[in-house]
């Protein structure tokens, strides 16, 4: 038997299906497999008999849907599918020949059986031989990645045990450490908002607060050479913010190092928070990655930027003529999402329900659905199919092969139109949940949906075990494209704080939910819960115990 797929709910088979399998085993399934016809894009149907038009064995009608009896191979229309078990004892299990779905004529319901789904998927594997080979190699890589993921989680959990300094210069002990305003040095709110997020990203924060060995060596070298080191300045910010001093901190040394490192960004103009975030992680990788990895590839990089934010996107391009699929993988430190301005009527039923209920509201799940939707490539992008040996129409579909520890989602609000030669900002409200399940957007889920959600474990891409995420920070933007302001919200022990440059204020959940999000940051739920537990057990001075808020569970 196949191992049970954790994301499925295996419903109990009805007694008729159980009796059928007990008496006939897999003979019926194998016989059906020979009759299956697979389309290149994943749909399955049962081949018609010699006569072109199937007819009901009882009423000789040729309208509506037809069902094939798994025992006597007779065709029945829907009405006589219900009568057939009454005249023939035990002939209860049918197959919808249009969709290849099991159907019980007595229970009058569709049935789901993992063994039947495996038979159907095996037919698909026969059809595309190249894909099967690809899956095997992917499986080998999967084992390696699972070890990497486990290692990262274990490593970061250990680091979480390091204690934060309890020094409190001002005696304002009713708020947790890590909350400190950052002075605006002149249109640097883009920098302050991203720095506040990084200061509260659990794995990232724990790394810097525990103090890496490399930083000491780098500090020594810096003292002699008078060089600017970005990592040391990031470390200085962490030390200052978590020191307990509550007066606003000026990240001037960091800005100086940053502008030396990124000459193209050394500019007084207002800049994009997302661009700063991406460049910052690139800089950290550049500084730390070389010393740790010996110039390995991105996938196995051990720098803190990649350990925390690294994810892997999968891109499938499928030939619409023969079904051959070409798969590529791209590393990413965040995911940029287009706003789902139009909910397509071709979406599934539940989306239609949402559409009626919420009017024209954009949701994060809608954006992710849009990101992972199959997209037909234009005529100028025709795929050269290795199987057909010519250019064919093709479908492209994105999915997430590996999720990072901290998931950063970027909403594309700044739109540039090449036709109109102008830029504008999209002020549309976007709903984002505080708890996010990324399972539907994993490669395994996308592949499953492509083949009709069969209960089948794909050889290569098994479900990621850590796909539950909890929000911990939001970067919002207000104003226009030319002149705006970034503000970040951070969640510390389930309390939300607004970080508006030097001003740190308490806000309620409603304010965060109603904000105009530009970047949304989620951390894997295991790390989030762990971080909350550790913070609540930080050693405190006696005077602080009275004011320490109780940390709630997510």
């Amino acid at each position, binding site marked *: 038997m196949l191992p049970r797929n954790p994301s499925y709910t295996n419903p109990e088979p009805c007694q008729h299906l159980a009796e059928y399998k007990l008496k006939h085993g897999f003979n019926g399934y194998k016989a059906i497999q020979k009759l299956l016809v697979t389309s290149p894009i994943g749909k399955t149907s049962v081949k018609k008999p010699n006569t072109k038009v199937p007819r009901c064995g009882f009423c000789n009608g040729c309208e509506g849907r037809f069902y094939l009896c798994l025992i006597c191979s007779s065709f029945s229309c829907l009405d006589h599918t219900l009568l057939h078990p009454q005249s023939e004892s035990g002939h209860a299990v049918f197959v919808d020949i249009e969709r290849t779905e099991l159907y019980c004529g007595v229970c009058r319901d569709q049935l789901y059986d993992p063994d039947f789904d495996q038979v159907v998927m095996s037919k698909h594997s026969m059809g595309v031989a190249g894909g099967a080979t690809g899956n095997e190699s992917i499986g080998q890589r999967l084992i390696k990645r699972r070890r990497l993921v486990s290692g990262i989680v274990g490593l970061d959990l250990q680091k979480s045990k390091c204690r934060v300094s309890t020094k409190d210069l001002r005696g304002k002990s009713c708020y947790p450490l890590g909350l400190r305003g950052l*002075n605006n*040095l*002149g249109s640097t709110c883009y920098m302050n908002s991203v720095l506040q997020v990084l200061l509260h990203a659990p794995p990232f924060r724990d790394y810097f607060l525990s103090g890496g060995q490399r930083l000491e060596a780098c500090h020594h070298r810096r003292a002699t050479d008078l060089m600017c080191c970005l990592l040391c300045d990031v470390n200085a910010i962490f030390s200052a913010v978590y020191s307990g001093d509550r007066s606003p901190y000026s990240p001037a040394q960091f800005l100086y190092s940053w502008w030396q490192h990124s000459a193209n960004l050394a500019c007084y103009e207002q800049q994009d928070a997302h661009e700063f975030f991406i460049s910052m992680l690139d800089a950290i990788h550049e500084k730390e990655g070389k010393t740790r990895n010996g110039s390995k590839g991105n996938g196995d990089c051990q720098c803190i930027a990649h350990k925390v934010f690294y994810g892997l996107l999968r891109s499938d391009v499928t030939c619409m003529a023969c079904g051959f699929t070409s798969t590529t993988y791209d590393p990413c430190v965040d995911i940029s999402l287009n706003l789902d301005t139009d909910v397509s009527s071709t979406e*599934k039923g539940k989306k239609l329900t949402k559409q009626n209920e*919420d009017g024209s509201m954009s949701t994060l799940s809608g954006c992710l659905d849009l990101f992972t939707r199959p997209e037909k490539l234009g005529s100028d992008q025709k795929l050269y199919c290795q199987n057909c040996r010519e250019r064919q129409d093709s479908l492209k579909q994105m999915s997430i092969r590996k999720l990072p520890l901290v998931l950063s989602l970027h909403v594309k609000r700044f739109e540039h139109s090449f036709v109109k030669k102008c830029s504008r900002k999209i002020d549309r409200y976007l709903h984002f949940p*505080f708890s996010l399940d990324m399972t539907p957007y994993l490669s395994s889920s996308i592949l499953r949906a492509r083949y009709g959600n069969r209960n089948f474990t794909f050889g290569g891409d098994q479900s990621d075990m850590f796909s539950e995420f909890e929000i911990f920070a939001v970067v919002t933007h207000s104003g226009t494209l030319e002149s705006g302001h970034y503000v970040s919200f951070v969640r510390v022990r389930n309390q939300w704080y607004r970080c508006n440059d030097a001003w740190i204020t308490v806000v309620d*959940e409603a304010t965060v939910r*109603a904000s105009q999000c530009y970047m949304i940051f989620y951390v894997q739920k295991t790390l989030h819960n762990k971080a909350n537990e550790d913070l609540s057990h930080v050693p405190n001075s006696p005077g602080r115990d009275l004011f320490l808020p109780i940390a709630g569970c997510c």
Partner: protein
Amino acid sequence: MSVPNEENLSSHSQLSSHFFLDLLDSIIVDVASECHRVARLGLDSNLEEEDEELKLSAQARVRVADPSNSNEANGKYVVDIFGQTHPPVANEIFDCMNCGRSIMAGRFAPHLEKCMGKGRKARLKVTRSSTAAQNRYSRGSPSPGSTYSPYSNYSTNSMNRLANGTSTFAGEEHSNGTLES
């Protein structure tokens, strides 16, 4: 003969309508079958949570849009969570790492931009200097070998000439004499 034609038209219309309904039923059954599978196998287990989150968002937007329910006094702060207040421009004083001068925090970025010779304003300054140099060179060309002082004299001389309206030799001598004194 018109009667059979009418029957044919009616028959064709009914037939196409029948086929259309068949196709529509087929599509509806496909969607229903997909939704049934998703529901039975628990692939939409987060739908209720999503709906609850959507309700929370709707309530949040209503509350924030309601001015009487605003948590912040017109969006302006009085004090932060530490009881501190902050000026519109940060007034902490520190030394610039590049040139060592004392700078106010809120003006550090524009200062550093010029100090490091980077960014927008630095380029503008360079451009202005180039323009000035070019102007000086072009004005100097009518009088080769002239120094700064003769340039000034020349300009004044020209003005005097214009004022007088004459170009006699005696006038020129008079102008020169005036300048010399």
